[in-house]
């Protein structure tokens, strides 16, 4: 009984280590694809269109409602101390440093990450990736690298859109509905947001974008090697769910780590 438990533990430990090793190699091969020729520029643009432009609507609505809620909640809290003039500063700092990068990454993981994982997973189970290998076409350069680059480019830009729309939502809720002085809202924002805060937000959005595309495309690529995933269409659906959950958790964990290190 005890030896069975130890065997299972050892087996799981080995599986996790092997999986981490494979995912690390996957990341390196995907980044190496940037330097391999011919570079697929049109595919990169197509992916930016799908991941970036395609996510604009969901980012817009999430940002507007998050900003508006922040405006109302912020006003409610600050009003207790007679500090509602600080609303602009509170809304903008929260959005730029935390909510903008995190929520954008979560939205991209749910919308584009899941699609990426399912597409690559289906290509894997229907031998399309093996077919690329057999034609001596590097599947990383051809398939994965454009998705990596597109996500790393799109997520920071989407985050910037999120921040702007979110702050506008906060302004409308605070100034429009709660009668906060517009001058003090803008003034608070201008004086409290520094380059360091913006840099932190940008670094976070790069890292989160990389995490989302790495985990989602990597899970799809190794769909047949994931323990307990099953076979065929079922394996793709399970692994897609797993990829979105895993990338979302990673974003939240790395958010804490980056804040702790860089703040």
């Amino acid at each position: 009984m005890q030896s069975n438990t130890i065997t299972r533990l050892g087996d799981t430990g080995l599986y996790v280590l092997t999986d981490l090793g494979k995912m690390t190699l996957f990341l390196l091969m995907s980044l190496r694809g940037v330097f391999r020729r011919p570079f697929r520029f049109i595919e990169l643009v197509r992916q930016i269109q799908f991941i970036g432009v395609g996510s604009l609507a969901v980012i817009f609505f999430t940002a507007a409602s998050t900003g508006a809620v922040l405006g109302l909640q912020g006003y409610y809290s600050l009003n207790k101390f007679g500090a509602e003039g600080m609303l602009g500063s509170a809304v903008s700092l929260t959005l730029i440093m935390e909510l903008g990068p995190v929520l954008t990454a979560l939205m991209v993981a749910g919308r584009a990450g899941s699609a990426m994982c399912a597409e690559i997973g289906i290509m894997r189970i229907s031998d399309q990736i093996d077919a690329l290998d057999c034609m001596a076409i590097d599947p990383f350069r051809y398939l994965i690298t454009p998705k990596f680059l597109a996500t790393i480019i799109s997520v920071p830009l989407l985050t910037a859109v999120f921040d702007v729309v979110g702050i506008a939502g906060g302004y409308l809720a605070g100034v429009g509905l709660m009668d906060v002085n517009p001058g003090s809202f803008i003034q608070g924002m201008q004086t409290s947001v520094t380059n360091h805060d913006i840099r932190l937000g940008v670094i976070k959005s790069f890292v989160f974008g990389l995490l989302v595309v790495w985990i989602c495309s990597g899970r799809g690529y190794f769909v047949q090697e994931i323990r307990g995933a099953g076979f065929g269409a079922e394996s793709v659906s399970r692994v897609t769910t797993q990829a979105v959950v895993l990338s979302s958790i990673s974003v939240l964990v790395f958010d804490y780590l980056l804040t702790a290190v860089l703040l």
Partner: protein
Amino acid sequence: MTSAIEFKNVVKTFAKANGSVQAVLDRVSFSIPAGKTTVVAGGSGQGKSVTLKIILGLMQPDSGQVFVHGREVTRASGKELEALRTQFGVLFQGAALFDSLTVFENIALPLRERTRKSEQEIRRQVEKTLAQFELTGHEDKYPAQLSGGMKKRVGLSRAMQLSPSIMLFDEPTTGLDPVMTQDIYHLFAKTQAEFGFTSVIVSHDIPKIFNLADQVIILNSGKMDVFDSPEQIQWSEKPHIQEFVQTTMGTIYQSHLVEK
């Protein structure tokens, strides 16, 4: 006779769900002659597809050596493997066409990615191939809009684009009706006569494929038997071969279309 592919004492094992180890290939040695057709046959799970993957370097054997035109695949670096693979054309079981690309784009893919040909030259070559494989008029369709037989023809024409010296066919007629199966075999015979490539056909479709084969390799429980003719298989006194003959052989395929 020079050999295109050579297996020397190749061992490949897989762990089963209950923790035991199954040898799919157990010290297997054989050679596939250049310019000829070799059929690799055997029941499900007997290592046919594993053999193909090892030849292509998509899977590594546990031990043993595999040579393609005298170069060892089992020790090849990433770059060497890439160079070796340019000599192969592969027709996958499900054709493995790219779902998001049209028939034209699928066939043009290896030319666009692996050659420096202009778009005009590529268009000319693909149009010629479409006519050759009776696919003209279907170039703008997506794989999901094609029948099983058409998918195989597109897969075959894509695999032929870079003029490979070795063609590998993985269960080429699975899921096709008898008429379509005959058409596909006819196409194999015709293209091989035209291009002279070495052909390796992995199939459980034994009776129908015999008249295409110069050599038949039967895989069973990790071991293999090599035969030079269908008759040799029928005369074999080995019990597992006799059982295989009884379960798979009906009338041997005699179509004048593929007869050699």
